[in-house]
Each structure stands twice: as structure tokens, then as C-alpha cells.
């Protein structure tokens, strides 16, 4: 593991990163609670992806860069500008949900305000879309960079190849990410692909492909920083394979103890990126355990507030079902 110091980020930035990571974790825990008690009907979570996502997103300039996420990217979306309340509005299916105004299932992120383009449930359809968003940057002669992500199972979709191929041809300012958590629901990587790494697919389309350990904050951040810089300078796309862990079952509809062994599940917990990140922050003297506890308490309040506020908001009403199908 790289030292956090090597990231070149300031103490404030690293603390901010920690807040993002912890917010992602705590908010997701809340969403599971709400699912269990029936207040929301579904959750699919990014636990185990948070450190990688924060390191990834911090390498961008969210005020101008575009993001086409997938359903595990809640934490990255919050670095990009969405709030806990925004997320909560989506999970509760409220009218003010910025992702879909209650029309999509929870965890389908989007925000016009923050340049986060809406995605569907059909995996990886965002990859071809991302090429359009990135091509628009070339047409506008703007230097924004576009980021899009999917899982390692979903990365096998044909549309992913078509998008990467085109991005290579046009040298688009576009970063492709595969968040590799080793499972596509119950299917392990040995049944998903045969090559050593997913990252190798980058060079096969004419641009760099890099595998990074998503639990290694500095390594991840630096890798993204470099490819984002290149893309912004007009040197074309890159593929980053972000090695992460799926700490939970696939979703609220799945039970991973059916297809994973006890030891496997226990080992996995030891590799919880949040704990490793905390240890690094303490070991390198950026934070103390108490400071972390304080932040945790603060975030809890923030999440409580977000939950209360979101719960109080109205749901879409039946008479809006035909709204916004076509332009007027």
C-alpha cells in the first residue's frame, strides 16, 4: 500500500476524503435499515467500494466534469455533489428525488445540477452514452473530462466494447472504470472473463488500462489523477480497473451466504477498505481515533436529518403518470 502522503493531498483534503468514505458507509447502513423495516423496498450498496470511489472522484473536477455512474456509485456521486438527502429522496421514491423524481428504483443516480447523467437498470448502457458526452466536449472545445463506471460482470456487455473502441478512435476525454468486486451477483470472475485483468482491454482498444487496488487510497487517486490529466490535455481515454470488495449481498433481494463460504465472508471483512483507510490516517498522523468518532457522530446527525427531511417530502401523485413523455 502506498502512503497517503504520496497522494500529494493536504491534510484537509484527506480528512474530507475520510468524511466522504464514512458518509457513504453510514448512509448505506441507514438504507439497509430502512429496507429491513419496509420503509424502502430495495437497496443495493457500495460497501467495500467507498475508498476507491472517493479516491477516483477526487481526481476529477466535479463542477465541470461529467459522471455517468452505475448503481454502486453512491459515494462517488456524493463527492460529485449529491447530498445524503438527495440520495434519501431517491431511496424513498419522493417527488423531489433529483435522480428520477421517484420514477426509478433506489440507487439509480443522476443529477442535472451536478452533471451526473441518469442511468438505467440495464447494465452498461451508460458506456455508449458516455462517448456522446465526451464527444460533445470535443465539439464545444471544452476541457471537461467524462467518467463512467460499471461492474466487472457488466463490463462484458458488447456495448462496452463498442464504446471503448469508439473512444479510442476519437481519442475522447473519457475515463472508463470497471469496479471489480469479484462477483456479478453469484457469478465469480472465473466465469465472467478469462484474461488476467480487465485492465488489459484498454490497450486492446488503443489506450492505457490500469488495474489499481481500490482499498489503496493513494494508489487509486494517483492513477486517476494521471489519466484525467492526460484526457484533459486531449491525449485520449483510459480504462481503470478498480479492485474493490462487495461487503454485502448483491442487493436486498440476494443472500450471498448461499454461494460464498463462511471463511470467504470472514476474510473479506478483514479487508474492509474503511478500516484500512482509518488505520492509515491514524498511522500517518493525519487523524486521531477521537476525531473519527466525532465525525461519525456528526454524520449520524446529518443522516438523521436527511432521513427526516426526506421522509416528510411528498411522493409523486398518480395524476403525473403521463408527465414528461414527450416535449410539449
Amino acid at each position: 500500500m502506498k502512503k497517503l502522503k504520496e497522494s500529494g493531498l493536504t491534510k484537509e483534503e484527506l480528512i474530507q476524503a475520510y468524511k466522504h468514505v464514512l458518509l457513504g458507509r453510514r448512509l448505506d447502513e441507514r438504507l439497509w435499515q430502512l429496507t429491513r423495516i419496509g420503509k424502502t423496498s430495495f437497496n443495493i450498496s457500495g460497501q467495500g467500494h467507498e475508498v476507491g470511489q472517493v479516491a477516483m472522484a477526487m481526481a476529477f473536477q466535479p463542477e465541470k466534469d461529467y459522471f455517468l455512474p452505475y448503481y454502486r456509485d453512491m459515494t462517488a456521486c456524493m463527492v460529485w455533489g449529491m447530498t445524503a438527502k438527495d440520495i434519501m429522496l431517491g431511496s424513498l421514491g419522493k417527488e423531489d428525488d433529483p435522480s428520477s423524481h421517484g420514477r426509478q428504483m433506489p440507487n439509480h443516480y443522476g443529477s442535472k445540477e451536478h452533471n451526473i447523467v441518469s442511468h438505467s437498470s440495464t447494465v452498461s448502457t451508460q458506456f455508449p452514452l458516455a462517448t456522446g458526452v465526451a464527444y460533445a466536449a470535443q465539439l464545444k472545445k471544452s476541457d471537461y473530462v467524462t467518467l463512467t463506471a460499471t461492474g466487472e460482470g457488466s463490463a462484458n456487455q458488447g456495448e462496452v466494447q463498442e464504446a471503448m473502441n469508439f473512444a479510442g478512435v476519437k481519442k475522447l476525454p473519457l475515463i472508463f472504470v470497471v469496479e471489480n468486486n469479484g462477483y456479478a451477483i453469484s457469478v465469480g470472475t472465473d466465469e465472467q472473463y478469462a484474461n488476467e485483468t480487465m485492465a488489459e482491454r484498454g490497450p486492446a482498444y488503443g489506450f492505457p488500462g490500469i488495474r489499481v487496488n481500490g482499498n489503496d487510497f493513494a494508489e487509486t487517486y494517483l492513477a486517476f489523477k494521471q489519466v484525467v490529466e492526460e484526457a484533459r490535455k486531449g491525449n485520449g481515454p483510459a480504462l481503470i480497473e478498480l479492485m474493490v470488495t462487495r461487503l454485502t449481498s448483491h442487493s436486498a433481494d440476494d443472500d450471498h451466504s448461499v454461494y460464498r463460504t463462511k471463511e470467504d465472508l470472514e476474510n473479506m471483512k478483514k479487508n474492509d477498505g474503511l478500516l484500512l483507510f482509518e488505520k492509515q490516517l491514524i498511522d500517518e498522523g493525519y487523524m486521531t481515533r477521537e476525531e473519527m468518532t466525532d465525525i461519525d457522530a456528526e454524520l449520524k446527525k446529518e443522516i438523521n436529518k436527511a432521513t427526516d427531511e426526506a421522509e416528510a417530502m411528498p411522493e409523486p401523485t398518480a395524476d403525473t403518470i403521463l408527465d414528461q413523455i414527450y416535449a410539449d
Partner: protein
Amino acid sequence: MAMMTYLEAIRKGIEEEMARDEKVVIFGEDVGGVKGGVFGVTQGLAEKFGDDRCFNTPLTEGLIGGLAVGLGVTGYRAIGEFQFADYILPAVNQLISEASRMRYRTKGDWIAPIVYRAPYGGGVRGGLYHSQSTEKVLFGQPGLRIVTPSSPHDAKGLIKAAIRSDDPVLFYEHKRLYRLLKEDVSDEDYVVPLDKANVVREGDDITVIGYGMVLNHALKAAETLSKEGYEAEVVDVRSLYPLDKETLVKAAKKTGKVLLVTEDNLEGSIMSEISAIIAEDALFDLDAPIKRLAGPDSPSMPYSIALEREFLVDEEKVLNAMRELAEF
């Protein structure tokens, strides 16, 4: 005889056919191993018949579509599962360009005996992409059959017939019926024909035609209406394509008052074709306009509970439409 859910009946039918004919193989996302499908339809098959005949594919529907055709031309009977009917869309090219045309374009030299299974239908808080009735997308492609059972008895007999058929058959399974319906299912080796609609209730006053969840609504509504003095003839379309025109037209002529019910959008649904057939062949036997009851013309059903309810054709809506027609 054994009490079985709709889901168990499908599994039983597959199991019997796999035991009977070693050329039958089954695959799809999460279909193999111990998971046995996200709804559990294929549970136990890998253990029973081996990982060669029941296996996971990578997350690639186009591949699933084409793999089945390749197995078909070499003498196998492939059963390819699409995890949701919504995710047939990436495979439409394979289904239309290859599976449905292999026999015709070689005048029978090569054939594609395949079953493509897909859970469809809403009312499960699945939002825009886990609720769709996509059968209309594949409807009207000569060479392909589309069928769907609406009872456990039919589920077992129809999947067995589909597997034995030398045609490619798209087998739709209503995901809400999976565990909702339970009945005694024969242990015998029976099949249900792939090309016959089924009169499930006799009546002289009105004719109701439907399939899937709404058919079950119609059956219940018919009992209520019966108490009000009207008897409904209820027909399960079952063979969605090609349609069993004879049975449908006969049932329409019998009462002269026709209600067509579908969970899909109103426009472009299979009910529109049935209406056209009746308008062509039975016009002068009609005593009322051919009425369609369907979802609104919005893009599938939103997640939010009020919107989902608004979209769905429920028992009350069916009863009201039936009553109105009876009183016409």
C-alpha cells in the same frame, strides 16, 4: 399429483425434460451453481445434471441468444434464460436475425430448437426496467413462437412442449405468478400445445381475453360478475405468437362483446393484433366496440407506489370494464 407453485411447475417441467433427453442444456446469468437463478427456477439442476448442462454465462445477453442458436444447429436443445424480460433487449438482434430465421433462410436445412425463458411483468416495485412486458418487441417475427403460461398446470406442460419443439420459443414467465399461484399438478408426462388458446371459463354474456396476471384478475372478476347475473367467457391467449385465431374468433363471436386485457401499454400490445383479427373476421357478430383495457401509454411503470398502482391493471379495473361491457 403434487401441490406446486407456478415456479416449481416450471422447474419440474425442465427437470423432467433434462432427465428425458441429454441434449437439453440450460444456461444464463446466475442459472448454474447453487444460486439457481435470481428467482430460483433452476435451483438444483446443476447438481442433478452437472455443470456442463446447467451453467452460468457471463453477463452478456447477445451471447446467450447466439449460443443457443449455435447449440441448436448442432443438435442440442438449449434453454437460455434472460434474467428479466427487460434484458432481452440486448439480444433482440440474435433473436430476430438468427433464431427466428435460421429455419426459413435455409429452408429447413438448419434449425434452431431453443427455449428462451424470461420473467416479465410488474407489480413488484421493479420500476422502469424490472417490470416490462417486452413480448410486443418480439411479436410478429415469423419463425419465432411466443408463449406464456397462466397457471401451474400449464406452466409445466408448456415448458415441456417448448423444450421438445423444433422451433425457437420465447417462454415468458410472469414473475408475480411465480409464488402467487399454487395448485395440484400432475406427475404425468403431459404437454400443453404451443399453438392453442385456452377457454378457462365459459359464459354467454361477454368475452374476456388476456394472459398472465390480468387473466387471474379476470377470473376473479368473473365470479363477482356472476353474482350480478352476467357470465363471462374467459380466454387465456397462452400462444402469444402465432395466435390461435380460431379459438379467439370463436370466443368473440360467442358473446359478441369483447374485452381485451393486457398489462402492457395500450398501444402496440398483442391485444391490438387480436382486436384487428376480430374486427376482420367477426365484425358483424359484434354487439359492442372491441374494448381494450391496458396500461397507459407511459414508458413501463415507475417505481413510486402511487405511479406503479396507477399503471397496473388490477382486479377492480378489470371488473369495472367487464361490468360496463356486460351492461352495454
